[in-house]
């Protein structure tokens, strides 16, 4: 019983000591801090910051020429322009416009009957807005000393084609190869499929119009 009481008193005393000691020390520290002057005087100096004077070139614009195979109407020369904006190193948006003059169908040539389309209806004009992805960045080597950065990219977009007097909703799927000849000048080789529904020959069908072009573009 006696021993138990001692243990209890001892533990109570040690607990009290443990609780009081830190706060006493804290009070000492506060007392000292108030009495002595600050050792380190903060030297607040405004840091001079300015944005780098640098030319940002995320736009790319240029012209293309190539060939387009208009379904049922043969292959024709296709030309136009494109403008792109590079969001990141991987993703860009692209607007393309182009035009071609459609040829004659085999039916028109062989049957000897009246032409299906007038000259103005043979004008094949299209535009599309696409999102592109630089899938394969790389380098192209010319000889042992020269190398140019390149990229293989995929594009997917939607637009419109005016052909045979009507506008058709067009899905544009493409793949291309971009070679940076200099820092700001690029050469593109593109293969695109302009797909749209056409009911020109009586029955509605999905037509695929394959376009192969060579483009020269400038970054700015």
């Amino acid at each position: 019983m006696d021993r138990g009481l001692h243990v209890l008193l001892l533990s109570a005393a040690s607990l009290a000591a443990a609780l009081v000691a830190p706060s006493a020390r804290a009070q000492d520290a506060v007392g000292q801090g108030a009495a002595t002057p600050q050792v380190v005087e903060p030297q607040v100096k405004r840091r001079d910051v300015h944005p780098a004077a640098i030319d940002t070139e995320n736009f790319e614009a240029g012209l293309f020429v190539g060939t387009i195979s208009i379904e049922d109407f043969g292959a024709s020369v296709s030309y136009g322009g494109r403008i792109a904006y590079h969001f990141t190193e991987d993703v860009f948006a692209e607007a393309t416009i182009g035009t071609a003059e459609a040829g004659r169908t085999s039916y028109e040539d062989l049957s000897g009957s009246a032409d299906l389309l007038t000259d103005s209806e043979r004008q094949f004009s299209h535009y599309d807005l696409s999102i592109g992805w630089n899938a394969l960045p790389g380098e192209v080597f010319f000889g042992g000393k020269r190398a140019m950065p390149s990229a293989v990219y995929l594009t997917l977009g939607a637009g419109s084609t005016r052909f045979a007097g009507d506008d058709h909703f067009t899905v544009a799927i493409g793949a291309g190869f971009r070679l940076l000849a200099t820092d700001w000048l690029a050469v593109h080789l593109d293969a695109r499929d302009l797909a749209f529904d056409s009911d020109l020959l009586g029955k509605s069908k999905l037509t695929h119009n394959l376009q192969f072009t060579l483009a020269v573009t400038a970054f700015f």
Partner: protein
Amino acid sequence: MTRGLPIAALLVGALLPAAVQASSDPERVVVQDAYLELRSGPGRGYPVFHVVDRGADVALLRRRTDWIKVRDAGGQEGWVNRSQLEQTLAPDGSAVTLPAPTPEDRTGHRWEIGLVTGDLDGASVVSVSGAYALTPTLQLRGDVSHLLGNFSTGWLGTVGIAHVFMPQWRVSPFVGIGGGALHVEPKTTLVEPEDRTDTAAYAGVGLRGYLTNRFLLQAEYRQFVVFTSRDDNEEIDEWTVGFTYFF
């Protein structure tokens, strides 16, 4: 459409000299990172072919997305990621920054542009949209849409306001109202083609989410009331999805 070609040619012609003249007097900075990795092209997929040490000074030549072309004292030129140049100082000791988009820009930007596609009452829609932020939550919006249906084609132009509920969130809902004009041309293969232009008003709801700090995916539903010259007004639905980028 062919009218656009000379314009594009003019645009390119006007811009080429600007591109050539660029970087005539490049800014020089002192490297503060341990080293800079110079790549052969503006992207992480191009190989590192040269390294510039801390303390060396480099000239900033041009920037493409997050990559900066630099030239070191020895004349080596290569592309460096923006993150390695964040700590650079000008020769006089002042800090040089290369601004990049941050999540804070979600509420701080002004202009947005978007490429949109979808469906308006059975017709396919291709549109370009633009927005100007009056406040972080209130936007002035404009859209120009090309409508391409099986029986008719047309144009729709609208102007409206949109309220973005939580612009600081990664995904935020929004609502909008506006009005505009709808022009419809029946296809030439139909018997009695009659063009018509009507005014229209819409109310819409949508959801926008950030894919990157500056790139959004935006989906929207709008209900249009077309004020026709006939007895009945026409109600049509539009569903769209598009990519939006802000400046």
